[in-house]
Structures are given as C-alpha cells and as structure tokens.
C-alpha cells in the first residue's frame, strides 16, 4: 500500500516537474513542403527529427503539409497566431514566408531549413550539400564501368545546382574523363512529385550509357530507383538514407541530417537557449554524410571505403576545395 502511494506520488511529481519546465505545453509546429512527410527523403528526415523530439523531449508537435506554394505563409501565420512556441519551415520555398511572418511575430521562434533568413528570432539551418555531393560523385565514378554517370535533379534551382556541381566535381576528381548526363524533372513544384517522368528521364540516361544515377528530386526520386531496378543499374539516394528502397541497387545515399539539426533546434528552444543566426551542417559535424549499411555493404568494397574516407577527411581538413554553386554566383 505504502509502495503504491509512493509510486503514485513519484509519478505525480514527475508529471508536475515536467509541467514546471512546460515541456508538454511547449508547442512545436512543423510546416513541411509539398513532398509531404512520407517522401522517404527530405521531408521524411525533417519529420523524423521533430518526431524524435516529441518522443524524447515530450513536447507537443503538430505537423502540417502545404498543399501548394501559396499555402506556406497562411500556415506559418496561423501557427504564429496560436500558442505555438517554435515554428519550423522546411525547405527553400518557405524563405519569403518565414521572412514575412517572423517579422510580424518577433517574440516567436522560427527555424528555416535550406535558406537563410537574417532575423534575431530565426535560426537558419544550412547544409553543405556540395560536400556530400562531391563524396557521392566520387563513389559514383569509382563504381562506374562505362565512364558515364547521370544526375537527375528536381528543378533547376540554385539548391539543386549545388548538388550537381559538387557531384560532377567529385566524379571528375576520381576520373577526369568521366561524362556526366544531367537532367531536370520539371519547372514547377510538381517536379518533386512526378515519379513517372523521373523514371522516363532515368531510362534515357541509362540507355545513353550511364550506369550510376544520383537522384536529387524529392519524391520523384523513386522513379529513378524504379528505372535502376528495370535496367539493373545503380542509383544514389538523397537526403534520407534510401539504401533500403531497392536493396543492392542503391549504391549509397547522400544524407542531410535534418533529423539531427531539427532535434537540436527543438531542444535549444525548449531549454531557452534558442539563438537566431545561421547554423551550418557539413561533413565535419556529421550534418552531411554518405550512407553505409547492410543494404549496400556489398557494393562498397573495403578498398573503396578507404578511398572515400580519405576524401572525406581531406574535405574536412580543407585540403580539397569543393566548388560551391552559392559562392560561384555571388
């Protein structure tokens, strides 16, 4: 009896102590872009991080997906008007919306992924995609037997150009004569959600001689993986670890650890140490990495792995300068 009482008391205490910190009252709003949380890629990584924060930090998470590009501002503003403490906008398309809404609600905290918004209440999470792309470009060139590799991007926007430039540079560092076929899925945000078209593009690249294709096209990437399956050639995944989608055919994945970055942002906002400004994630702090797991271990030989690791170290040490599209264009 006494024990039960003690038990109940300790639970009550535990609950009240979290209440004192306000953890379960702390509301986080996550606004995903059009890919949606099950794109197995970019948004999936963001959602994983926020969900982990909800589980481990016991905060109150609400996730919404924008139906179209005009919905961001409305979604962000309605969250800011309600009692959300931290509002996270995922994706470069939300830059303007975050800029506007964060200025209107200076007391609320905002996070933007993949774009910079300079305001004291906004934390910008930037990833050095070019570093990771360089690394997977090198891996592609090491695995390619035909001397031709492919790149399928979603839209031709600076962010994806950054992937492309890094990828090509990485491939050329291994084989200066390698040819890189480059294609883009579309011109509107439908490009991120058009697997049939991405598959058609990948089929043409494979038929054109490419034997590895790097897909940086959100939910459209699954079309590239389907083509890899049909043609029994390799593909490279992006943002999340996508090796599991077609085991044995996905050479590796260029991971953007949005999950880690967003978890950390939630944590800092919860503990009151949230600061505005830009945080950079790259190979050096494991914010960017290539995926190695049981699905692709047979594709990456120990010899290859050694080379990849040495390239990675050289980038971190600054011995290899990876071209950055953002800096090229000023």
């Amino acid at each position, binding site marked *: 009896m006494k024990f039960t009482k003690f038990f109940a008391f300790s639970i009550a205490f535990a609950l009240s102590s979290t209440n004192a910190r306000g953890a379960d009252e702390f509301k986080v709003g996550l606004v995903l872009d059009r890919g949606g949380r*099950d794109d197995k890629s970019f948004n999936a990584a963001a959602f994983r991080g926020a969900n982990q924060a909800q589980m481990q930090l016991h905060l109150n998470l609400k996730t919404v997906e924008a139906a179209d590009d005009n919905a961001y501002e409305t979604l962000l503003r309605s969250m800011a008007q309600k009692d959300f403490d931290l509002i996270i906008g995922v994706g470069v398309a939300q830059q303007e919306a975050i800029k506007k809404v964060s200025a209107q609600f200076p007391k609320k905290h905002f996070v933007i992924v993949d774009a910079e918004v300079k305001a004291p209440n906004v934390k910008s999470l930037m990833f050095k995609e070019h570093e990771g792309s360089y690394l997977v470009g090198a891996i592609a060139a090491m695995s390619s037997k035909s001397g031709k590799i492919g790149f399928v991007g979603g839209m031709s926007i600076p962010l994806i150009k950054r992937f492309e430039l890094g990828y090509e540079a990485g491939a050329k560092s291994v084989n200066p004569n390698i040819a890189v076929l480059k294609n883009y899925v579309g011109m509107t945000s439908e490009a991120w959600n058009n697997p049939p078209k991405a598959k058609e593009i990948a089929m043409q690249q494979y*038929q054109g001689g490419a034997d590895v294709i790097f897909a940086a096209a959100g939910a459209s990437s699954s079309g590239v993986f389907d083509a890899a399956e049909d043609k029994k050639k390799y593909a490279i995944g992006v943002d999340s670890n996508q090796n599991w989608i077609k085991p044995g055919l996905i050479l590796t994945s260029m991971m953007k650890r949005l999950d880690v970055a967003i978890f950390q942002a939630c944590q800092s906002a919860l503990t009151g140490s949230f600061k505005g400004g830009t945080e950079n994630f790259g190979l050096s702090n494991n914010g960017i990495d290539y995926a190695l797991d049981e699905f692709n271990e047979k594709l990456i030989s120990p010899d290859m792995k050694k080379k990849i690791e040495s390239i990675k170290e050289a980038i971190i040490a600054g011995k290899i300068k990876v071209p950055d599209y953002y800096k090229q264009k000023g």
Partner: protein
Amino acid sequence: MIDSLLQILSSTLRVSTPLLFAALGGLMSERSGVINIALEGLMLVGAFTGAIVAYSFHSPWLGWGAAAISGVLLAAIYAASVINWKADQIVAGTAINMLALGMVPFISKILYGVTGTSPTIPADERFIFAPIILVWVFLLIIHFWLGRTPSGLWVRFAGEHPKALDAAGIGVKKVRWGAVLMGGALAALGGATLSTMLSSAYARNMTAGRGFMALAALIFGKWRPIPTAMACLLFGFTEALQIRLQGVVLWGTEPVPVQFIQILPYLVTVLVLAGLVGHSRPPKALGLFFEKD
C-alpha cells in the same frame, strides 16, 4: 543514331499512353455532349486505386479493374450532377477534380497512415508494356464503334443533335450517362497506367496536369479518335525529345539553359492550339443541358 531514334520512339509510346487513355475518356464524354474537365481528378483516383489494389492483391490486372470501377463511381457523381441535376459542367468538373485531390490523401491516411505515397509495388507485379498495346486496341474499338455502330451513332447524336435522338425514341440522358461512365473508366485506366507501369506507386498529385494535357489533345484532335491519338503522340514525343535535349550543346560551347528546353511541350501545345489546327469545332450540344420538352 538508329539507337537513339528507337529510344525516343519507345519513350514517346510510354509517355503518351496515359495521355491517350485520358483523352479517349474525354472523347467518350464530350462526343455525347458532356464537357469533361474532371479528367485530372479521374486519373488521380485511378492512379491511387490501381496502385493500392495492385499492391494488395499482387496483380496489376486487378489494380486496373479496380481503377476502372473507381473511375466509374467518381464519374457517376459527375454524371448525376450535370445530366440530372442541371449543374454547370465546368463548375461540377472542377469540383470533381478538387474532390479527388482531397479524397485520395484522406483515404490513404486511413489505410496506410500517410498522405503522400502508397507502398511500392514489386517489379514483377507491375505492367511491363500491356497498357501500351491495350490503349491502341481501345482506340481502334472506339473509332469503329463511334463511326459504324448504332449505339456509337446515339452517342454522336447526343452531342450534336440531342432533340433528334430524343425524337427517335432514344433516351438522351441514358446515352450520356453511359458515355460519361465509360469515359470515367478510361481516364482512371490512364491514371492506373501511371502508377502501375510508368512508376511503382501512387505519389501525391502524380498526374501533374496530364488530365489537362489530354483535354488539349482532344481539342487538337477535333474530338475525333485517330487525330486525338496523333495529338497525344505529338505531346509524348515533345516530352521525350525535351528530356533528350536537356544539356545538349546546340550552338556555341554552352548547353541551352534547361528551362528553355523544358518549355518545349508547352510551347508546342500553345502553338498547335493557337494556329496549326485550324478551326476545331466541338460537338454542337457540348455543355448544354438536355431537358425533354
């Protein structure tokens, strides 16, 4: 050279298959006098139903069958509102598109807990090329049926001169109902082709405007089956060519900016619709509500 020509040709056939299905669906409905701008929504529902049924029952044919049924059901809502309840056909068609856009994520959420994609269909449970052949078979059937059979004539009269059809003792509303339902099934098959042949799952809004492209092909083809099919092939060809031309150096040393290449299909659409087709006359009673005197 021959190699790349063959590749572009096969790519053209693949890309134009869903377009042609949807265009044939539109043709059925519009030749009977009912405007169908709901093709996009019908395709989307077909894509979703086809993907989940093919995945659950391990057969793309079952997926196809289910997609056709789903298209018929959605088209029935449309038919009831425009043929019986006098709704404006453009407004009701838009409503059907929006209904599909909202309903599919809703059902997907209930079934799989996610709103954007369905589970991936394994490679050996997908179509390889069957729909590409079937769509041309359907085309020929519809071509002969419309032109050579009594019931095909009814459909044409329902669209051109419903009063004459009525005077002959044939129910105009019944004929239109039949045509719209068949049109719904065909458009949904186009959607299912996207998810069970051209990719391996349903993805959110994966139709990406193909329903409207099909509508343009239908107008371009002057509401006739064979020219409509040619229009679909042309759109498929520009799409395939567009992919091929990206990053190619046409003059100088720099490739043409990818955006210029990507507008090619749209440019062709605008050009053919604006100038090259000549006068395209819709069925006379298209969009008009029919009431017995």
